[in-house]
């Protein structure tokens, strides 16, 4: 280890974090050090930055029309009003788009759970020739940008008369490489003896899958469901292309459309954004454990 001074550019908090990491000093013993305070101040500042745009969005959504575009820009509504939300749900039919998003995301999640779990289980527990090579081939798909397939896929959908339909939106997302990967990683951890014992007992493969594997997979299935639902809810480019009838728009598409028509109506657009964001935020907060686990499972080689 060559001697080197800490470069002046390194934030003290980072070094504070590193310094204390392996030591087993009880937290409460000599009171709170200045390093701790600094660290928390910094963390709080970052939290502020992370939250500020969202907080302003909520605040502006309650402002009366036109008050957000004044100088200096207000931080809080004076007075607060539900008018924007009322307008969204009565005049602008956001409830329809909300429902469409729920249907599309729900369909995608359900089918994704089914097909990805089946395939992931097969890749993990069945032995057949070229299994691992096939899996690696499937994984390569992660490198192909989805935009590549879009134009031909659209033309294919046109032949199937599925343009401007929910089925057309759902179809490409019903089975995904990432989902299969996630399930496979998890299922690899299920002991083979469990499955072999059931086979010896005469249970069919489908039965084993349904009654043993799926229940054991509950945690990763919840993770997958949360993941897929959120990504389906937030999907923009494909529904934009496939859905031409505004009655079928999902929330992101409707929101983009609204933002071009109602460029001037800041408060209205903020309310629409809140409606779009709220379901996924709530879902995330209640199930964040699973979502985060899904990322780390995918990310860190374990």
């Amino acid at each position, binding site marked *: *280890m060559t001697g080197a001074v*800490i*470069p002046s550019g390194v*934030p003290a*908090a980072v*070094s*504070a*974090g*590193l310094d*204390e990491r392996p030591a087993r000093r009880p937290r409460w013993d000599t009171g709170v050090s200045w*390093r701790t305070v600094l660290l*928390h101040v*910094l*963390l709080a500042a*970052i939290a502020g930055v*992370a*939250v500020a*745009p*969202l907080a*302003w969005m909520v605040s502006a959504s309650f402002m009366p029309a036109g008050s*957000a*575009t*004044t*100088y200096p*820009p207000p931080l809080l509504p004076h007075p607060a009003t539900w008018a924007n939300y009322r307008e969204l749900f009565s005049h602008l039919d956001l409830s329809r788009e909300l429902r469409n998003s729920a249907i599309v995301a729900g369909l995608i999640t359900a089918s994704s759970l089914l*097909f990805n779990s089946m395939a992931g289980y*097969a890749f993990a527990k*069945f*032995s057949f020739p070229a*299994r691992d090579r096939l899996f690696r081939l499937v994984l390569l*798909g992660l*490198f*192909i*940008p989805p935009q*590549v*397939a*879009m*134009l*031909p896929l659209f033309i*294919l959908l046109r032949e199937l008369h599925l343009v401007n339909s929910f089925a057309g939106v759902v*179809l*490409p997302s*019903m*089975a995904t*490489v990432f989902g*299969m990967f996630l399930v496979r990683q998890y299922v690899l951890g299920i002991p083979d003896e469990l499955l072999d014992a059931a086979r010896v007992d005469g249970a069919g*493969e489908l039965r084993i899958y349904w009654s043993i594997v799926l229940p054991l997979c509950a945690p990763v299935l919840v993770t997958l469901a949360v993941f897929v639902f959120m990504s389906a809810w937030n999907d923009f480019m494909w529904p934009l292309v496939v859905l031409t009838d505004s009655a079928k728009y999902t929330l*992101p598409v409707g929101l*983009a459309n609204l*933002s071009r028509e109602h460029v001037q109506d800041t408060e209205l*657009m*903020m309310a*629409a*954004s809140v409606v*779009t*964001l709220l379901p996924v935020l709530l879902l995330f907060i209640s199930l964040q454990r699973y979502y*985060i686990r899904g990322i*780390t499972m995918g*990310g*860190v080689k374990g």
Partner: protein
Amino acid sequence: MVRGDAGARAARRAAVIFLAPGLVLITLTFLLPSIAALGLSLTDFDIYAVASPGNTRFIWLRNYAELARTPMFWISLRNTLYFVLAGGPISVLVSLAVAVMLDSELVRWRGFFRTVYFAPVVTTLVAVAVVWKYLYDPRYGLLNAGLHAIGLPPVDWLGSTAWAMPSIILMTVWKGFGYNMIIFMAGLQAVPGDLYDAARVDGAGAWQRFWHVTLPTLAPTFLFVSITTMIGFLQLFSEPYVMTQGGPLHATLSIGLYMFTEGFESWHVGMGAAIAFVLFGLTLIGALVQLRLRPKGTEGGA
């Protein structure tokens, strides 16, 4: 897994049943269209051809030659690379820094901070783009109001060719830093404590421990994060579509947006497919380059 021949055949049959739905869907909605896109990129398929497929001709690499001759293509390439090469490292480094801070033993309420930092990640991109579009408003936006408060002149965030892409980068970093932060945190947990102890015994300071212990152990995670971030950034589309429509003066025209306008607005399908393939090529090259450049000792398989 010791079975007879019949058992092996039964295993193969089961594998087919379980794999079929997922793999058929992926083949139909992803693999085949991607191959078709390659084929399309070698033709002059356009709206005439949509009307009657006979109006297509094989023009081999003429689309690619045409692209090389088109200034708009090079502009979109430059913009996309700007986004990836500037935004990518910034995003990854911010995530790493925050992860290191949050990983410190000094931190209280770690779960709370983690949730707050992650919240922007799950938000719908379109909604966020709409909110930030107003934050960036030169007259009424909070950002310029903030600049004014500390005595700095206002910036024409989305309206000036110099600031438009940095504005999108800023928003993208804000939205995404939580994602890689989680992955880094998981990676940091895997650093063995005794390595730190040994380093400390050797007299290494905090920065040296970071450089010589933490970073090398994080290297596989770092590689994974940087490759996946690059892949995601290369596909830039929704932000310019919602916030700037590629402007001002094409400063935010990304390859994804260019492909969308060529393919779905002008219906130069052959050309659009060629652009998508260029995007694919970039993705492959970028991944390969990073894999080549990785420091020794970060061998990690799938």
